[in-house]
Each structure stands twice: as structure tokens, then as C-alpha cells.
């Protein structure tokens, strides 16, 4: 569950995992590397694109900063 001012989002699966990786220390590359280990069958490029568009969507709402 991601709580923010006046709202909340219930996250599951990969979305939840990505946000758990966003700990304020890991870089984007490190997050992509961690996901690549977990989803070995997907290409690193595809993972990188997906992570970026997910984080961008959250950034637009000011739910993550990077």
C-alpha cells in the first residue's frame, strides 16, 4: 500500500517490487539490474523502458522523486 496525501494505491506484483527497490539509495540502473535477475527471460532494454515509464507516471503525480 502506497499512502500519500489524501489518497492511497494498493500495489501488487512487479509494481510493488519496483517501489520496494526505490529506497532512496539505489540508482535506476541498479533497480533495472535487480529486476533483470528476477525476470531473466525479458530483455534488459524492455525492463528498463517499463520501469522508466512506470516511475515517470508516478513522478507526474509527485508520488516519487528522482
Amino acid at each position, binding site marked *: *500500500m502506497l*499512502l*500519500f*496525501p*489524501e489518497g*492511497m494505491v494498493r500495489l501488487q506484483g512487479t509494481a510493488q517490487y519496483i517501489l520496494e527497490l526505490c529506497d532512496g539509495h539505489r540508482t535506476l540502473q541498479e533497480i533495472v539490474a535487480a529486476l533483470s535477475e528476477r525476470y531473466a527471460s525479458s530483455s534488459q532494454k524492455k525492463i528498463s523502458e517499463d520501469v522508466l515509464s512506470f516511475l515517470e507516471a508516478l*513522478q*507526474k*503525480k*509527485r508520488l516519487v522523486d528522482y
Partner: protein
Amino acid sequence: MISNPLALIAEVTHRCPLHCVYCSNPLELVSTNAELSSGEWAHVFEEAAQLGVLHLHLTGGEPAARIDLESLILAGHQAGLYTNLITSGIGISVSRLSRIVEAGLDHIQLSFQDSQNRLANWIAGAKAHAHKTSLARAIHTLPVAFTVNLVVHRQNLDHIDEMIEFTQQLEPQRVEIAHAQYYGWALKNRDALLPTSEQLEKCLRAVEKAQQCLAGKMRVDSVVPDYYARYPKACMGGWGQRILLVDPSGHALPCHAAGVIPGLRFDNVREHPLEWIWTKSDAFQKYRGEGWMSETCRNCERRSVDFGGCRCQAFLVTGNASATDPVCSLSPDHGLIQIAQSQAGRESERLPLYYRTQQR
């Protein structure tokens, strides 16, 4: 089946150094010596968390008027609640701000009355604007989510663009453009505060433009004021469905203004467990479900969307708390709202303003 509440609004005091003419507090304010202690509040926060509450909104009055605000925040945080402080900033110095954030505050919502010093102080009935502005500059350097709350109404909507620009300079993550809602003191001042439809259209355009230009920098949230909406708001997400409010003396209410409805008995957290109050007490049961609804609502397909609107507004405008919220275009009493709309903007500058004051 009764759902669990998701948010607790804790009105920790009705004391306030400001006298805002649109204050949502009741006209009869709770006195200081009746306030719950920090220990009592901590117990309420624990009970709320056990009931399933996720968000805690500390509000007032001005919560910083309590010298134990830091321990209230700590108690909310320790109960595992996402803790939000709704404040005017008065009573919070930069050093107290650091202590408040360290106590575990997740989010601070700082209100502004205007972008212009003179107008802001006029609406607040106090010299507050300069302090708010300097506090905002300290907030955005700290690890806490920051929202600026701009309260808008007829007296300031003409320069909404300027107010949004001013807010940008304060660097919050989010701005909430909050139209005054006509309860409590705002209802007393409705003739001076209700915007004209032209102002409202201008505001909608300004908000849309800001949302586009500022995406990723500052989130812009705004809700159409219900007097001008076609259908009523789903007040509190439905009576006794998502939110509960505890007033400074421990009375639990389903809505800020519910105290105006005659014949409702509000049980107190000093005498009953919060869970019993939520699930069983008369006040919370009174407008749950659809049994109480008027013919207009009972036959309307939107009854599960907006729950007939706001019970307090229905009472305040029509005298009947079970009536369809009169802001609804389908309400037989909608003419009462149209009269208020048609009067908006006439002789506004000469109208007297009633400032929020506390009887001692």
C-alpha cells in the same frame, strides 16, 4: 455489512489565532478545558489503526495551539498511521517544525488565504501571511510531503492565476485549490463568499492550464464547488462509510458539520470504544444505507454514487436532514441554491464579514 473507516479526522483543539471568515468549525466551539489529553488521543489513534484507519488528519482550530502537538504526531506515527498536519503555520517556528517532522510527520498541509499580504490578512483577521510564507520556505527543505492549501471564494478568485504563481514559488509537491464550503462560519458569510459563475469558469481554466504546465513539478488538485455542480458531492465518501471525525472533547461525528443536525446524539471516545461508535452508535447508523432517503434519491440511479449528497447541507438549506442535498439539480429544493447563486456578486464589497471568534 459495515465497511471499516479509512481516515480519522482529529480536531485536537478549537483554539485558533486566526479568524478566517470561511472556517468550517461549528459556530459553537469546544472550550480548552474540555479537550482530550495527549494520552487520550494516543489511545484513540491506536483504536483507529485497529479499526483499519490508514490516514490521520490532525486539524483544529489550529493544532499547533496545543503544546503537546509533537507527542500527538509521535502517537499517530507509532500507531502506524500516515500522519497529516493541517495547519495555518501560526505557532510553528522553524525549530518546532524540525521537531514536528522528526516526531514522524508524513505530510504537512499549510493553508494560504491569498497571494497578497493585505488581502490574506483581511480574510484571516490576523497578520499571518508573512509568517506562513517564511515557514513554507523552511518546509520544502525537510523530508516531509508538502501541500499548500489555497482557499478560494469570491473575494480572491479574480486573481487565481497570481495565487497559483505565488504557490509555485513556495515549492510544494502539491496545491489544493479548495473552494470554501458553506457550513459553519462560511455559511454565515455566504453572501460575501459565493463566487459568480464567471469567476468559477475562469478558475476552471486556470486550474486546467496549471495542471498541464506544472505536471511533474506541482500537482494541482481542485474540486468544483458543489453549489455549481450538477450533482452533489459524495460527502465524506458516504455517511459512516470511510471517515470519522473526533472533536476536541472526544465526541465522534460522521462529518465536520453533523453537530447542526437536531436530534443526533454523538457518543464520546471517553465512554465507548471507537469500534462500537463506528459500528453501533446511533449517529453513525442514522444515514447509512438507503432507508432514510427521500423519494427523489431512492429512485435515482446515482444514489450509490453520491449517497444523496451532504446531510448537513440538506438540513442547513432546507431544514430537513433527510432531504436530497439541495445542490443537486434533481432536488425539489434546488431553487434555494439558485437564489443564492443569482445573488452572488451583488453589492459584495459592502457586505459585512463575520469573523470566527470563540466565546470565552
